[in-house]
């Protein structure tokens, strides 16, 4: 498995797209910090970027890599290798290189602008942790989609649809249900609904750590009571972990059964 991981990782690291992704974050980081020296405000801006872009890139990149390396995968399958290690290796290679681009691309400008001397360091690490989780989750989901769809166009379509659903449509449904049931106490409901969407969960986790949480008023206070405690944070991280682990298990399970 590690050999395959190493191979796909180095393959990706040498590829142009990783560089573009890395350079994009690097440039964005430097430009934003140049325009606004306030690190904690920059964290908010990056949160906006990360919760939209990281899942999108993770999904597209995952599907693309899977389809592109299909022939190589089939070659590997002919070798006496465990199927799970082939697919896990590839998955970890993709997710790892994306995470590396993200962490380095954002980390370098922030460190140069004095992250270690600022109070924003915890918020920033939370940002990176959620960014990493989102990469892991959405790459895993996209691998699942690619594995179950032989047709590239269909695979791409489903992957983009998945992203669209979790990033946009889910919030729309959430909003609708809040408005329809506005007569009822909705705190626990909105708490639960947030938990079921990794993008919402990441957004809420970061928002609550920032000053801006004062805007959230009463509902924010309920959320803060939950996520503010260590238990809440552990549960939130646990849910994110679950979101990453379940698709990976499914990937392994499906790859074992699939007829190539």
């Amino acid at each position: 498995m590690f050999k395959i991981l190493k191979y796909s990782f180095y393959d990706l690291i040498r590829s142009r797209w990783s560089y573009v992704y890395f350079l994009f974050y690097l440039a964005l980081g430097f430009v934003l910090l140049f325009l606004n020296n306030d690190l904690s405000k920059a964290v908010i801006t990056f949160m906006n970027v990360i919760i939209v872009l990281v899942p999108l890139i993770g999904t597209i990149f995952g599907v693309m890599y899977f389809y592109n390396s299909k022939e190589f995968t089939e070659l590997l399958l002919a070798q006496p290798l465990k199927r799970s290690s082939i697919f896990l290796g590839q998955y970890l290679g993709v997710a790892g290189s994306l995470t590396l681009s993200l962490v380095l691309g954002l980390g370098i400008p922030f460190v140069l602008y004095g992250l270690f001397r600022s109070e924003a360091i915890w918020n920033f690490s939370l940002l990176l942790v959620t960014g990493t989780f989102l990469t892991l989750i959405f790459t895993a989901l996209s691998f699942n989609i690619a594995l179950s769809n032989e047709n590239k166009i269909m695979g791409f379509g489903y992957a983009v649809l998945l992203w669209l659903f979790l990033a946009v449509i889910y919030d729309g449904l959430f909003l609708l249900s809040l408005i329809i049931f506005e007569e009822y106490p909705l705190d626990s409901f909105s708490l639960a609904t947030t938990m079921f969407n990794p993008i919402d969960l990441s957004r809420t986790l970061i928002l609550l750590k920032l000053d801006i949480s004062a805007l959230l008023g009463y509902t924010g206070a309920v959320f803060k009571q939950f996520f503010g405690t260590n238990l809440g944070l552990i549960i939130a991280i646990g849910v994110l972990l679950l979101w990453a682990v379940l698709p990976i298990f499914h990937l392994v399970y499906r790859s074992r059964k699939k007829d190539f």
Partner: protein
Amino acid sequence: MKYTYHIFTFIFLLIGSLLWSRTVEICKSCAVKTIKEGVAQAFDFDTLLIKKGTYKEFNIRVDKPLVLLGEDYPVIDGEDKGEIITIVSDGVTIDGLFIINVGTSYTADYAAIRVVESENFLIQNVVLEKLFFGIYLEKSNNGRVYHNKIIGDAIDEYNSGNGIQLWYSKNVTVERNIVQHVRDGIYLEFSDNITIYNNTSSNNLRYGLHFMFSNDDVYTDNVFENNGAGVAVMFSKKIKMRGNSFKKNWGTASFGMLLKEINDAEINGNTFEENTVGINIEGSNRIEYKNNNFVNNGWAIKVRGACYTNSFVNNNFLYNSFDISYNSKLNDNKFEQNYWSGYTGYDLDKNGIGDVPYRPVKLFSYIVNRTPETIVLLRSLFMDIIDFSERVSPIFTPDNLLDASPLMKPLR
């Protein structure tokens, strides 16, 4: 002839009293050792010169026109036993004292300095610490509270007092005071024609400045920072608020300024910076907002209802999460020639005024008003998308709530 006689007698008495106006020195080694003794022995218009030292006294009742002048800030320690100085005579001056340990009570409002039904008083250069109420003016007119420093240690609202309190007092000037860590920094109740100028009120438990039933007051160039809930102006008429700055009143139930039942006020040239809500308006009519800066607030202005004929002209709205929140479809307020940092229109004829109107109410802020729980969707991509579509063609937000002539550049 009779009047001339009266006038002569008056002049003679005046000169006589001026000539006889003595200075009584008070210190540990002087003939007069306590302030109470000094007040008892002094004649009208005398000066009590209080030398450096600690005087453990309370309930000092000043019942004749005297000047209590402290030399090198003598300390008057009330030992938490009750009120310290009570003024019940006209024309009293208190200058340069350091008063500590005012008693706390749940039945009486003990103050460091209380002025009761007296006129022409002057309280200046006084430092108050560990207090319950600071300077309490009760039915006292035509006075001045100047350059005092009040530093409390209030923790709970129910057992703490206000820094400077005016109750049924008229024509008083409150100038250059610093008030910190009390319940309300400056509190006015039934007090008209008050001038509040150049004070700093910060870190107070409740409000930096609080008006109740007080009319025709002016407050200018004050700084209100980091108070529990900012400044509250309630049930008052014709208040002028100019050049103040409201900063960092940040918290779930905080605001820069709260207006409730305020009519015919003038709000000019103030700065609202980093408050959860810049101004919270409720039942306030005919108010003129001009040349104010709203910077980095959560909500710049939150309009709660029953607000008519207000005008917002030439203000700067810079980088607020929400510019205006509005809870009805009816709009009778005027927005004209403001600068909005969220404005994305263009100016083809280069006259400095945007050609497309700006709609300051976002759909999201409308939804949040209806269903407060939806605020959890703050900064979600979906919200940005529907905000954008609503801005293009408004359906839910009041369609006449717009700035038809938004400025292209912020006002200086």
